């Protein structure tokens, strides 16, 4: 594992003595650059920083969690670019959870909303440029020449006339004493050496070697492993269990009742698991023992009829639709989907009277720090939160549930504790992508222009469990992705893109007791399936080609138009397709980026199997830092989306989760993936995110292709062979 800096060393500014340290401090009024020396004098806490040391290395402390999206490399590239460092001198270290590393977009240290690169891009460029300016000035002073006569390149400052040279490592101490420029000049795009070119990811070699340390790999002296027997139904309480039988298992050290169930702690994971089996817990029936999938769908569809909260109300949608030349209405349903990150939930905690250490592969470092301080009863400066690399995040690791468990047990037992969830626990106790029930009505004029749109949405709460601050007037904006957004939201433009003069969007928060969370792209994914399927229904009603209809209703939305036009051209939209295949298109914007996709599929009408042959994507995310990993993020997003569209649905029975493991909750495998082509649209628009925006369009592109293949509209995912056969038989 890359070692983490000690927070104390940083806050005291003692690193300033080692070389040149440049930090960025973000306030509500913008960001400010701070040098290590200044930070030490004023006690001012910079946000995120890098340092240049006499060994000629540049170490960038990465505030975001690395979960394979390539954030280590992208952020280091931004610093290296403006600093004019040589790539070989760049090192990265994962930062601890600490005040100085909060993302400027949310004043919180978390790795969500595809926000790392877009959040740090400008501050990091300025920080890099300031460092370069100070190094150049230091060299000019040594040579007693003007700064204009010097240039910096590849980690060396050179005096042009005399060809004298000094490496950054030699200059860093002198530069550290200089004052930091607040507005250093930035490079022009055509001068970029790294930004925009694919750089090999810095985290890959250790991962390929099998040497990367994930949270589940953390080892401590005298560690106990803990597993927890958890209720099989929501709200179920233990009636009885055989504590003695568990304690008799060799290696079991302690059996303990905790708020989330009954914990078994042992000297090995195998003993802990055997001990838990031996408990033979009897549980009561929980809060809603009748709940199963049929119950859920019926319940949420009925909730559509309840009085709703108005989220958007522009013009008069009801009137516009009643007066429209054509009117279309439909109900859609999207079920619960699980994260199934390959690394199951886990956490290691060591709570001592005077300090608390937590190792958590988390996407929400600040939240972990907060719960660690609260459970240990220690102030935050006695709490160290280390973020090992993450074995897939997908949003699941925004919840510190396993963290709370490890902390609770470690505090009670005075021992380092590693809590590991089995895959079954991971699926049954997930914070799912919420199910949603939709009712939409829309009206068109005689030319096929959208005149009115009325959208009712029932969803379970999401923000309520993660960030109650996102809950405004009872509206959970995490449920509204792709439909409506708060004006100042860092999600950036997660709203419906079509130009609709009369728009009504209403929301009802379902009362079902199922915990939900953020799942890659949050509800942009399932909402895009609904919106973009319905857009194809409207195009058909208008008698228009689906691409033409979209462009007609996105007249002034240049970024959405451009990705649609690009994907249409690259995929050969309107051109002949291979025999037996059909094509569908969809677009969606979220987290500041625009993505359109075309899917080519075929349907086996004998068994209902859908085969996706090819997905072509066009992406406008503004300036691109590292194109290779960017394309990988879009590929992964498409595969996640197809997996949810074709295969995934959490099964419930007797008031709890029935799905348990990869044998009954199946995700996409290698033989099932299509060819994927990603085209990046060159763009100098505002930078958007890239981790999530690849997800939303794939599901509706496939659903639209399915309609084009069969003439049948299925208003529900997943499009499993059984559901497809049922739908085909009905027609």
């Amino acid at each position, binding site marked *: 594992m890359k070692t983490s800096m000690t927070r104390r060393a940083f806050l005291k500014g003692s690193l300033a003595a080692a070389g040149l340290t440049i930090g960025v401090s973000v306030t509500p009024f913008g960001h400010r650059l701070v040098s290590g020396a200044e930070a030490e004098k004023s006690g001012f806490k910079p946000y995120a920083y890098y340092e240049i040391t006499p060994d000629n290395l540049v170490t960038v402390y990465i505030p975001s969690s690395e979960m394979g999206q390539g954030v280590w490399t992208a952020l280091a590239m931004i610093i290296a670019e403006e600093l004019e460092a040589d790539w070989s001198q760049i090192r990265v270290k994962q930062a601890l959870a600490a005040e100085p590393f909060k993302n400027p977009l949310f004043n919180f240290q978390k790795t969500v909303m595809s926000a790392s690169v877009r959040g740090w891009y400008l501050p990091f460029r300025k920080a890099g440029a300031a460092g370069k300016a100070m190094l150049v000035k230091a060299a000019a002073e040594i040579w007693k020449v003007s700064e204009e006569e010097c240039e910096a390149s590849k980690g060396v400052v050179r005096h042009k006339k005399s060809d004298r040279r000094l490496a950054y490592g030699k200059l860093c101490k002198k530069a550290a004493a200089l004052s930091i420029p607040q507005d250093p000049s930035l490079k022009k795009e055509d001068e970029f050496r790294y930004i925009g070119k694919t750089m090999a990811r810095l985290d890959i070699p250790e991962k390929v070697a*099998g040497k990367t340390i994930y949270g589940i790999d953390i080892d401590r002296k005298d560690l106990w492993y803990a597993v927890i027997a958890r209720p099989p139904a929501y709200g179920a309480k233990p009636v009885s269990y055989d504590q003695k039988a568990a304690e008799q298992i060799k290696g079991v050290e302690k059996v303990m009742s905790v708020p989330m169930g009954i914990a078994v702690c042992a000297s090995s994971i195998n003993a802990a698991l055997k001990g838990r089996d031996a408990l033979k817990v009897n549980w009561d029936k929980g809060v809603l023992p009748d709940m199963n999938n049929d119950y859920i769908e019926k319940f949420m569809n009925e909730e559509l009829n309840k009085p709703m909260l108005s989220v958007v109300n522009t013009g008069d949608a009801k009137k516009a639709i009643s007066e429209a030349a054509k009117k279309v209405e439909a109900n859609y349903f999207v079920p619960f989907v699980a994260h199934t990150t390959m690394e199951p939930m886990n956490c290691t905690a060591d709570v001592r009277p005077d300090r608390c250490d937590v190792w958590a592969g988390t996407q929400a470092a600040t939240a972990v720090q907060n719960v660690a301080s609260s459970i240990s009863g220690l102030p935050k400066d006695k709490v160290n939160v280390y973020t090992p690399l993450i074995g897939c995040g997908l949003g699941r690791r925004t919840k510190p549930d396993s963290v709370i468990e490890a902390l609770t047990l470690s505090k009670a037992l005075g021992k380092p504790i590693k809590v590991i969830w089995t895959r079954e626990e991971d699926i049954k106790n997930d914070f799912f992508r919420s199910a949603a029930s939709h009712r939409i009505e829309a009206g068109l004029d005689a030319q096929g222009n959208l005149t009115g749109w009325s959208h009712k949405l029932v969803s379970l709460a999401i923000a309520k469990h993660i960030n109650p601050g996102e809950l405004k007037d009872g509206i959970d904006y995490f449920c509204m992705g792709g439909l409506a957004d708060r004006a100042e939201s860092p999600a950036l433009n997660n709203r419906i893109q079509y130009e609709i003069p009369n728009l009504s969007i209403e929301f009802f928060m379902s009362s079902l007791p199922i915990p939900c969370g953020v799942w890659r792209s949050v509800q942009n994914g399932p909402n895009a399936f609904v919106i973009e399927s319905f857009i194809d229904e409207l195009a058909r009603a208008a008698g228009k080609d689906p691409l033409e209809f979209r462009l007609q209703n996105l007249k002034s939305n240049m970024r959405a138009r451009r990705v649609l036009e690009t994907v249409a051209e690259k995929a050969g939209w309107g051109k002949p397709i291979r025999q037996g295949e059909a094509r569908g298109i969809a677009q969606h914007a979220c987290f500041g980026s625009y993505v359109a996709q075309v899917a080519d599929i075929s349907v086996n009408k004998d068994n209902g199997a859908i085969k996706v042959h090819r997905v072509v994507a066009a992406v406008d995310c503004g300036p691109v830092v590292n194109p290779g990993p960017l394309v990988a993020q879009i590929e992964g997003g498409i595969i996640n989306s197809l997996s949810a569209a074709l295969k995934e649905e959490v099964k419930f029975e007797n008031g709890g989760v029935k799905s348990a493991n990869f044998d009954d909750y199946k995700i996409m495998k290698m033989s099932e993936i299509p060819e994927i082509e990603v085209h990046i649209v060159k763009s100098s628009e505002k930078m958007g995110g890239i981790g999530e925006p690849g997800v939303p369009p794939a599901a509706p592109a496939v659903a639209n292709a399915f309609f084009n293949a069969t003439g049948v509209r299925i208003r529900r995912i997943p499009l499993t062979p059984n559901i497809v056969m049922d739908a085909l038989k009905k027609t």
Partner: protein
Amino acid sequence: MISLHVNGKVYQVDVSNDTPLLWVLRDTLNLKGTKYSCGIGECGSCTVHIDGKAVRSCTISVGEVQRKKITTIEGIPENHPVKKAWIKEQVVQCGYCQPGVIMQVAALLSQKPALNADQIINKMDDVICRCGTYPRIKKGIKTAIEMTKKEVKKS
């Protein structure tokens, strides 16, 4: 005591016969490159080689593999064509499943007679990746085959 032959070394471990090999590799021998993910042999993250064949270490007990030759991701040399191809093609995202994926490919690549890329790709559904690196795994397999052919030519 159980005797295990792992990555060319012999270890004596004090665990019961029925302990899954996975936990012994990870927690007793501290070979943490082999990953736990499903525990039922469905996902392949824990794949190791037993006498050269890809096996899920979560569903095989140490008692069953005594005196057999066990290889883990740590026992695959850094210059192995699969490891080299994985870096060249930048296959990995989060990387958690990749030791298992690499072990699966390495075993298939060493089969005699040699399998072609499509034959290997068709045997990859034993390993699951949630990040969606499958397109790059396919590329990596093709590159690893090329690299293997070149090595054979050289020698």
